[in-house]
């Protein structure tokens, strides 16, 4: 009698627990990659959306930059609320490190929060996002790691430059191939996670080549995250400014104002 009661209670509790959860209540490994956002192709879909929504070459605009949110989801959530309250923002770029160790839950939490945005968002992959099965999960949810789009005649390149954690190929040649076809654009902006000034990861020769490329193709802004602190080099080349953005984990997001007179940034603390 006693055992039957215990088993009945156990059964009821189990059914209640299973029924009360809209998430999978059975999880098999922290390394699983099967995401509820699988196949969303967020980068490809949102880049195409930005392309189609904003094509007035005379219109000034603002976009938001968030980076290095890692597992501070509440802070990213606060940033999303601030962005949503600002109607002048056209789209958002996450500059990478949206996870700590490339785990599925970390990706899903970040995407769950970014999906609250009222404007399109795209993401660069960060070095932390590549750990474990992170690369596969990123590709599964976001699609391409290297892609480009145009917003009001401003050409954006987003790329994976995490050379320790992944094979980035001849990234400068890839930039070259894209930029050569967009010399008529109002401005050109390159965004990657790691600044090419990181001398532990990139040889001076590589940095020199990147700077030549920026100068040759009149790249207005080289935009990065990774360092968790702000630094801005207005004369990265004679034609290019370099901005390494402070992190969401430090309660910072950036608004980049693209105007006929030039590109300016604004730091928003929260």
């Amino acid at each position, binding site marked *: 009698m006693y055992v039957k009661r215990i088993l009945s209670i156990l059964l009821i509790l*189990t059914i209640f627990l299973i029924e009360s959860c809209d998430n999978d209540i059975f999880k098999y490994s*922290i*390394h699983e990659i099967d995401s509820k956002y699988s196949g969303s192709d967020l980068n490809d879909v949102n880049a195409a959306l930005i392309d189609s929504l904003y094509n007035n070459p005379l219109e000034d605009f603002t976009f938001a930059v968030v980076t290095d949110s890692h597992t501070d989801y509440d802070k990213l959530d606060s940033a999303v609320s601030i962005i949503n309250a600002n109607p002048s923002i056209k789209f958002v770029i996450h500059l990478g490190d949206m996870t700590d160790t490339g785990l599925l839950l970390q990706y899903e*939490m970040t995407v769950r929060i970014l999906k609250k945005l009222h404007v399109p968002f795209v993401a660069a992959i960060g070095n932390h996002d590549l750990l474990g099965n992170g690369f596969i999960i990123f590709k599964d949810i976001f699609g391409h790691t290297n892609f480009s789009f145009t917003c009001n005649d401003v050409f954006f390149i987003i790329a994976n430059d995490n050379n*320790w954690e992944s094979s980035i190929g001849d990234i400068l040649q890839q930039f070259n191939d894209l930029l050569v076809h967009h010399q008529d654009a109002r401005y050109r902006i390159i965004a990657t996670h790691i600044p090419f000034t990181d001398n532990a990861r990139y040889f001076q020769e590589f940095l020199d080549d990147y700077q030549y490329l920026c100068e040759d193709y009149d790249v207005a802004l080289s935009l990065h995250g990774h360092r968790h602190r702000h630094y801005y080099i207005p004369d990265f080349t004679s034609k290019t400014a370099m901005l390494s953005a402070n992190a969401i984990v430090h309660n910072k997001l950036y608004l980049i104002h693209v105007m006929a007179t030039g590109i300016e940034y604004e730091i928003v603390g929260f």
Partner: protein
Amino acid sequence: MKKVCITIIFLFLYLNPLYSQLKYKQERSFIPDFVVSQFAGYIGFISSGVGYDFYDESLKLELLYGYVPKSVGGIRIHMFTGRGSYSLLRYRTTNELSFYPLNLSFFINYARGRQYVLRWSPTYPERYYRPTSLYTGESVGMSIKKSCENATIKGYEFYADVVTMSEYLYEYCKNETVKLEYIISLAFGVRIYF
């Protein structure tokens, strides 16, 4: 110094009986006390292994191999888990039944695969990344055991656990946006005692 003394006394009090238990196991040539098989709970779609009982079945130490097929996890995963479980309460009933309403477990999970790193290469600065092949987890659960005297199989135990990973628990504690259901998994298992 005081802390060191307390730690030494604690270790002595704790490890001395454990040593006696291990000595007893050694006399039995370390033959496991039971085999265990589990469904879900972050250690595999199906995991199986062996284990030992200590302190009159209050403490269990287990070693399990877990497998997640591609059709379930999106990728094939092989993993090994070392787990220690402690039963805080035990109620004996009639018919050689025992009910354990509160079992606490801690486990270390090792995933095998090229993408999971135990020691990072010297390319990376020291402590640049944590090992990605090792994660720890914890669970709380209950079990019911039926003992069978004078039989080859000495008993069966069915258990249910609510499991999470330490990494996720930490994220849950520091973020209100992380809901409990995102981080927990149910697990069911059976132990067969010999």
